[in-house]
Each structure stands twice: as C-alpha cells, then as structure tokens.
C-alpha cells in the first residue's frame, strides 16, 4: 500500500507538490482576507482545511525528496524554505487550534506563501549526493534550527496581530476586523509560548551543531549566538516584565525579520547541507 503511494508520488516531478501547497495557502489566505474585509461570516474550518491540505502537499514533497536522497531534505535553499514553511505550519496546526487562534491561519498562510514562492523560483539545486555518509548530528542540528525558525515565524505573526489589536484599542475606533481577531491576552500568551518553544529548539539546534564533528565556522557561530542572545533577551524582558507587551511583540517581529533577512542567517543553515 505504502509502496503504491510512493510510486504514485514518484510519477510526478516533486516540485508539483510545492505548487499544490502554494495554491492551497493562497486560497486559504485569499478566503480569510475576503471574509475579514467584507465582514462576511468566516468559515474557519475552510481556512483550516486548506492549510491542512497545503501542509499535506509540503509533507509529500519533503517525503519524496527525502526518500530520493536518503536523508532529511534540507540540502539546498529551496528545500530549506519548504522545510521552514512546513515547520511553521506544523506549529500553527498544533498551537493555533489549542487557543482561540484559528485566525492566525489567515496570517500564517501569507508567510507560507512567500516561502513557497521563493522555494519555487530559486533554482532547484541538485539533490544531495546520496553516496556520502549521513551525519545524524548535522541533521538534528539543522532540522531543530529550522523548526525553531518556524516557531519564531509564528511568534512574529502573533506579535503583528497583537500590535494591530493594541492599536485598534488605543485609537478607540475598532473596525470589524478587530472583533474577529483573537483577544489581546490570548495573543500575549501565544507570543510568549512560541518564543519559548522557538528558543528551546534553537538552543538544542545550536548545541548539537557543536557535535557534528565538522570544522567550526566562527562567522556562522557568531551569527547563531547573536540570534540566540536576541531571543534570550526578549524572553528575559518578558519574564522580568521589563517591557510592555507591545515592545515584546514589536521585538518578535524585528528579531524574525533579522533572522530571515540576515545573509549569514540563511547561509548558516543552507551552506551546511547534510552531505
């Protein structure tokens, strides 16, 4: 049965699954925005279903690619982006349904869309050379670091929603969208938990990086430590209540933008293929 499924999956080029996932996330995002803007009743199950379907297609892509190369499929920039998007959506599916945060999906979908568009337009890159030995520590290090990025991405999404809600409350002119987004207290809790989750995973990712047995690239290590310190600082500020909620939310966005936008950040992960 599984073999039949694998054969069906192999009949098509694996990038078709990225396209299918992209369409699902686009539809989910489009529907949510249409509902929010027009004020029409939002069938959150539809958005949730589309995001689940997009997640399934990403999983198929990663499964097919991983099966093909015989290792965790994080061997080039395109795979990295798909894996990061997959991690973010996975955390959304777990966290988003726990709280009254289903609408985070409406904000998660566009981030996933951007990642998949990038994954689709960048050169596919050659799959890794499967004849080389797999380094399990390197795979643990890379995958934990990327899943951490997914948690940080969602913390950024929750932070953006918090700032939007806070602004609406302070201006005393809340629009219809305000009443359809999660409560500000729930966003504070979600942002905090996502930061903790991301920080824990990132710490494990960094620690296992030293166990790979590979030569240490101090530029990349410095970058990783900088990101770790930044998120650690945000969490210390949160725990000590040294900053107002809106500054924590703003810093979640700044930190993730830095994470994504920093060249070294991408290279740190992308240039350590599991070869």
């Amino acid at each position, binding site marked *: 049965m599984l073999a039949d499924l694998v054969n069906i999956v192999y009949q098509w080029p694996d990038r078709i699954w990225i396209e299918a996932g992209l369409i699902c996330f686009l539809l989910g995002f489009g529907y949510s925005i249409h509902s929010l803007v027009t004020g029409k009743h939002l069938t959150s199950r539809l958005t949730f279903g589309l995001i689940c379907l997009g997640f399934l297609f990403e999983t198929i892509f990663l499964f097919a690619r991983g099966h093909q190369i015989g290792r965790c499929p994080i061997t080039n920039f395109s795979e990295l982006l798909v894996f990061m998007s997959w991690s973010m959506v996975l955390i959304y599916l777990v966290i988003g349904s726990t709280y009254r945060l289903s609408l985070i999906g409406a904000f998660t979908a566009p981030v996933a869309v951007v990642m998949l568009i990038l994954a689709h337009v960048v050169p596919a890159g050659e799959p890794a050379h499967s004849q080389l030995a797999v380094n399990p520590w390197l795979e643990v290090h890379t995958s934990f670091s990327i899943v951490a990025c997914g948690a940080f991405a969602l913390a950024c999404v929750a932070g953006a929603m918090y700032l939007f809600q806070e602004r609406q409350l302070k201006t005393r002119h809340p629009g219809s969208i305000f009443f359809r987004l999660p409560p*500000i207290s729930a966003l504070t809790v979600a942002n905090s938990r996502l930061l903790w989750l991301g920080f824990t995973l990132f710490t494990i990712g960094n620690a296992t990086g030293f166990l790979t047995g590979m030569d240490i690239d101090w530029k990349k290590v410095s970058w990783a430590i900088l990101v770790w310190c930044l998120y650690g600082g945000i969490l210390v500020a949160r725990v000590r209540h040294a900053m107002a909620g809106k500054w924590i939310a703003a810093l979640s966005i700044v930190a993730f933008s830095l994470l994504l936008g920093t060249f070294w950040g991408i290279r740190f992960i992308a240039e350590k293929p599991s070869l």
Partner: protein
Amino acid sequence: MNILCFSISHQTANVEVRERFAVADSALLASLAKLSEMRDVSEGVVLSTCNRTEFYIVTENAQLAMEPFVRDFYGVMPVSDLAPLVRFSSSHTVRHLFRVAAGLESMVLGETEIFGQVKRAYEAAMRSGATGKILNKLFQRAFQVGKQVRSTTGITRGSVSVGSVAVDLAQQIFGDLQGCKIMILGAGETSEKTARCFHGCGAKQLFVSNRSFERAAALAASMGGRAIRFDEWESEFHDLDILVSSTAAPHAVVTAAKLEPILRMRRDRPLFLIDLAIPRDVEPEVHNLEGAYVYDLDALQLIAQRALEERHKEAEASANLIEKHVREFQSWLRGSGLSPIPSAVMEFPRL
C-alpha cells in the same frame, strides 16, 4: 384560502396601547383554543412579545376585517385602540413574517431574540393543533429565511448598545470573562445595565461599590457578586481587570498618578476602564498608560452607532433575500392549489 396577519407593534403603537393587546404566556393556550373556534379561521398562530402582538391566520374569508376579528377575540375595545392595528394579506403577510423572523422589523434592527419568540409561538400553536398545512409551511420557511439572513448577511453584526459594546471590547481584551474581576463603581441605571451584560456573558467575580451601601448590596446580590463600601473600593483596585464607573463625583476618581504604580505591579495584565459618568470618573491621561484602555460614553456610543449603520446597510441585502423566498412561497402556494384570492393587500393604521 387566504393568509392574513393582524398586527400591532412598536412601529404603530406605544407601550400603553400595546399592553392591552398582549397575550400573556399563561393565556396563550386558551387564546389559541379561542382562535381555533372562531368562525372563518381555519389555522392560526399568536405571536406576542413586548414589542408586538400578531395573529397569523388562514381563512376562507378574504374580506375578514380587523374590527370584527379583534372584537371577537378581545371583546369590546375602544375604537381608538384599534387604530394602530395593521392588516396584512396575501404575499404581504408572508413578507412580514419573514422580516419579523429575520429581525428586520425589530426595534433594534437585526436582534435575534425575536427568532426564538416566533419559534415558540409557532410550536405552541402546532402543539395545540391550531396550525395546518399552510401555516406549517409558512413558519418553517420563515425559520429557514431567518437563519439564512443571519448567516449570509451582516444584519446581526456588531453590538448596538453601550453595554454590549463594552462586553465585546472586554472579550477582545481578556477572552473569556469568567475569570475576570469586575468592579461596578456607582450603581446607577447605565452601570447596572452594563453590569448585567457582563453577568449575562459569564462574568462571575463582580464587585459593586456605591455611596449607598444598601443599593450596592442589592445589586451585588442580584448578580451573585459582592458589595464593597465606597471608602474601601480603592483597596480592591490592584486586583481588578475591568472597572465600570459611573459615580456622581464632580472630579476624576481614577487618575493617571494613582494608576501608574498599580499598572506597573499588574505587569502583563491589561486593565479595561469603562467610564459611563458625566463628568468623567477616569482622567483622560489614563488611556495613554501602557496596558490601560479607557472607553467613555462617547467612545462606546460611537462604536454602537457605527454597528447600527452597518446593519442598516445590510438590511437591503436581507430584503432582497426575503423577496426571493416570498416568491418561492407564493409559487408553492399556487402549485398546491391553496392560492390566496387577491384582495386589498394592506391596511395601514389610522393614526
């Protein structure tokens, strides 16, 4: 067969007149029995709420007039009381019922309570055997229309009263209100209404403080809350989530200077202050403090007003939807061979 409706409502009569036509719940079954026994009436439903009393009847007498019907039902009534009655017939009855069930004829446009009231009126009539093929079909369709209007248009969107806007905002700040500590400062009419809105939405920890302790105790007792003496309310303030304030104090009782250290101690917990007093109880500068959200009467009324305007915009879309259902019902009626005899369709109140 003809479908008629005799109606008196808030649109045509004041409460003094309306109450003379009201049918109490306890008298409903007897009224339905009386309706069934009336000459010319083959099916009937009595809908009686605080804003309207309506009789939906099926009759073979297309000319059945209001006055003899009302006198048969209520006995002798002053002619002046009959003036606000409206008689609908044919498709106008169908349209009217659909509009009533959808909340388009309600005092607060789009309110949903009427849907349940129509449903209860119909179920009582059905159980007592007062309905038949036509009214069964008509009311079933009305429920379908009411649900569709609510789910596909924005007629129920937003809150249109100060109290419910305050509750909506609180829910957008805290989520579930069950764990929120709410203090009602000043037990006036507006704050009492707002407090009852919070209580109705699941708030459990209510504290009431008022210059007259007896008044505070009575209000607190009616909502399962706790009364606090007026000179002690500040000692409870550090632990509050929501303050509903409407004292008669001539100056602000909650100032930024007083609140700043309290907010610092609250850390991430926001504080929602609803200021219903004139002059205001909460200093405007408090709104600029981190984590404090102050909404005065004007701010709440503006939100309610905007929601009401939105509902009025949606009323047109709802009316179009209803027209479609009226046409479908009329074609069912024609197809079933029970088509009404065309007649003067509506008589307006002679005010």
